[in-house]
Structure formats: structure tokens, C-alpha cells
């Protein structure tokens, strides 16, 4: 049976996809290339990975509020994440998710989500279901 994690609904909507999980906070301005969706922040544990089509899981955002617009651009260009899961929602990421219409849940212990796992996010109910661990 799938494990269901209960968090807080932030932005409504549902999405299913592969989890991209970071232990570090993320700044969309300067940290993610708005054209390609590749994480460019030097030394970040997701440096070089793409946010396109994934369920993006990270503790919380940091950095400039322009980051909200970067998230919007990524989604508009089709290289953005399908959903966002945070431990603690911060205004930059929340505003970005709201204007881009990306389902978002927070207050989730993301240490319980393995990078590469198949997960289902329900931004209306505030849940994250782990459907399948990373294929080995």
C-alpha cells in the first residue's frame, strides 16, 4: 500500500510524477536557469538537474522575490515542475506557485521522500502519496 504523507494545502491541484528531492533550500532567481529549467546554483545538491516535469521537493526557498517570476516563466515555457513539496512554505515560492498555478503542499517531512520515487501530490487536500520507491 502506498504511504500517504499529510501536510498543509498551499496551492490546489493534483499532479503525479517522479520526485526530485533536495536537502538544501533553493533560490529560483540565480539558482535555476529560466530558459532550460536546469538548476545552476554552484554546489547545490541538485546542480545540473532539470526541474521539468518533476515533483520538486526541497525544504524551503530563499533569495530574491523575483524568484516567483522565474517559477512562472519556467512553467509557461513548459520546463517547470509539475508540483512543489516543501517543509516550510516561504513567500517567494508560494507566490510563484500561485501565479504559475503549480500545485503545492508544505509541512511535509521531505526526508521521507526518496529522490526518484513516483509520487502523487494533492494540493487541495495537502497530501503526498508515495506510490513506488525509486526503481532499482
Amino acid at each position, binding site marked *: 500500500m502506498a504511504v500517504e504523507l499529510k501536510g498543509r494545502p498551499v496551492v490546489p491541484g493534483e499532479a503525479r510524477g517522479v520526485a526530485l528531492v533536495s536537502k538544501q533550500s533553493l533560490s529560483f*532567481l540565480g539558482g535555476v536557469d529560466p530558459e532550460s529549467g536546469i538548476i545552476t546554483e554552484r554546489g547545490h545538491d541538485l546542480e545540473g538537474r532539470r526541474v521539468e516535469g518533476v515533483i520538486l521537493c526541497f525544504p524551503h526557498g530563499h533569495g530574491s*522575490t*523575483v524568484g*516567483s*517570476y522565474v517559477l512562472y*516563466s519556467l512553467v*509557461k515555457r513548459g520546463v517547470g515542475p509539475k508540483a512543489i513539496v516543501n517543509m516550510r512554505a516561504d*513567500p517567494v515560492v*508560494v507566490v510563484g506557485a500561485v*501565479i504559475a498555478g503549480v500545485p503545492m503542499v508544505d509541512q511535509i517531512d521531505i526526508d521521507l521522500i526518496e529522490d526518484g520515487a513516483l509520487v502523487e501530490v494533492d494540493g487541495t487536500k495537502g497530501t503526498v502519496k508515495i506510490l513506488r520507491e525509486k526503481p532499482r
Partner: protein
Amino acid sequence: MYLTKEEERILEGEMGWAYQTAMKVLVKLGELFGATRLIPVRSAHISGVSYKTIGDAPAEFLEEIVKAGGVAQVESTINPAGFDPEHVDEMPIPEEFRFKQSRIINLYKKMKIEPTLTCTPYYIRRPEAGSHLAWAESSAVVYANSVLKAWTNREGGPSALAAALIGKTPDYGMHRAENRQAEVSVKVEPELKGEMEFGALGIYAGNVLKGRVPYFTGLRSPTERDLKQLGAALASTGMNSIFQYGAEHKKELEKITVEEADLKKVVEELSTASEEPDMVFMGCPHCSLEEIKNIARLIGKRKVKEGVKLWVCTSRYVRERAKAYVRMIEAAGGHVLCDTCAVVTWLRELGVETLMTNSAKTAYYAPVLNKVGTILAPTSKCIDMACEL
């Protein structure tokens, strides 16, 4: 969070996508931070203007808002941009950057937002004490709350824009009296001489306060100019939106003492360069009329050195009112630039490697944002360095 019938209708999309999106942003932030309702704001000040700082991403969102008919409902102003179109000789910015910068400014204009292009909108219209605002630009936020006694949260670009479109903001944080109270008493031991030392105090306090509201004692009759530098620097190293100051605080608070050595260390650390500067920059935050007058007076009959750029940055509004002093500065070989500043423009592309400034905020940011070496020094020393003997 309580919403009126009208606010609910906007949230449901009756007024179109632009207002619906703006309302969603306000409601979501309100819920996140425990607001009870939306309150009207007197004005909005929006950051996210310089193409150098923000790149291409925001323009796409702003364009959609314009297309959907979004227009500001309250007096709204914007932060500085990447260049001064009337000084392109002094700022030879590539055509493509200028085009993209103009596009961003035009999008704001279409939303009926005034292209003030300044970080000191309070010199254009001084908000009344007790009025509620939705301002971005951290230095203006601290100044509004602490010096002008207006009430504003430290908004980001998008949330200030949302507040401009709706004319309201959620009533959390700085909009509540209990959150504006001092939590730590900061006793300033040395007598601060001039705005640069106030800036150094701000950098130091921002680092040690960890977001708590300070009550500064020992500031001997500070000018508004001093307090501007204190607040701008405080907001750079701390997440502060407000400071208090005066004689002894009535309540027993945790005490921090700032000694002369602490500030000396800050000034040393913010001076990363040992070379002579190729630019001397004043006007972070943008100069007041009084500051421009002071700079003109300090220059006197001297000329700016060959090979040194002297930049004095302000708003068009203030420049227009400071004409006589602007002429004196320009006759000496300096430049009084509007709409922009050294930090939000392409400094390296202009050939600048070492920047001297009286602004602790600039000295804090320029090495990272502009990749230049910095020297932090008092105003008179900056002018002496810029001018021939």
C-alpha cells in the same frame, strides 16, 4: 481570513485574470502569515525593475497582467532601472539591454504605475504617519516604518504589484502594533560621525539581531540622512523591517552594546580593495535634495580627477529641484544620474573595477552583484578622493 463579498467575487475571477491572480497572491500570503482581513493601502512601491537584476522572467508575467487589463488602483511607484536614458554617453549599455529595460518600464506604465524609478519614493510623496502601505525595496520599507512611522511589511516585487492592483494588503506583520515593538535594546557607545558610520552600525546590528526589532540608544540627534543609511544597511544584513530609537527604553529589554571596535571592523571588512577607486558613487539609497547640496558644497571649486567617475544618483523629481547644485557637480566633471544606480547597472561592462562609496549597503552588495572591489568611506573622504587637490 475574512473577505468581503466584493473581494470574493474578484477571487472567483469576475474582474478577470489579472485581478484574480493578484487577489490569490494576497489571500495566500494572508493565510500563510495569519492575517484576519485585507486593509486598504495608501500607496504601493514595486521592486523588480532593473533588467540587470531581474533578467527576462518577470516581463512575461507583467505582459500577461497588462494583456488581461490589470491597472493599479492606488498610487504606485517603481524602483530604479538599469540605466539613465539621458546619460547614455556615461552609460554605454548594449542596445539589446536598453531595449529590454525599456520594455519592462513600459509594461509598468501600462498598468498606470508611475515610472519614478527611484528607491526613495518618500522624497516625492512623504507618506503620513500611521498610513498603511505596501512597499517593496527593503531600504524604503525600513525608512517608512522607522523614520516616517508609516506601516508597511517588507513586500517582494510580486506582492507589492498585487497590492497595487487590488489597492489592499493582508493585515499581518508590520500592520499590527504588537509586531512593531522593540525586542532588544542596542546601546551605541561611540558617537557616530556622519552617515557612513550609521551605515556601519546597520550592517553590524542586522547581523546580530537575527530579525528582532532593535531600540537604538546613544544616537545623538541623528539626521534623516543618517537614519536612511542605518535602515538601508540594517535591512541588507538582517530581515528587519523596522527599528526604534531614542533615549532609554521604558521596558526592561535584552541589551546589546556596540563598541567603536565593532564598527571599525565592519568598515574594514566592507573595504575589499586597496587600489585607488575608478568610480566614486553617492546615492544609495537615492540622494535627497539636501545630500546633493552637500556634495556640491564639498566639491567646491575643485575638478573631478581624470580617470575617476563621480556618480551621484537620485530620482528625476529630486534632480529637477536640485538644478543649481546639479550644475555645480556637473561643471566639476561629476554626473548626477537618474532612474538608476551603480548597483543595478552593468558596472563591470562600464570598466569599473574599484568602487568607493559612503553607502554601507552598496559596499555590502557590490562585490557580489557587480564583482567590483569596494572602499567604504565617509562622504567628505569620498569627494576628496574623487577630486583634484
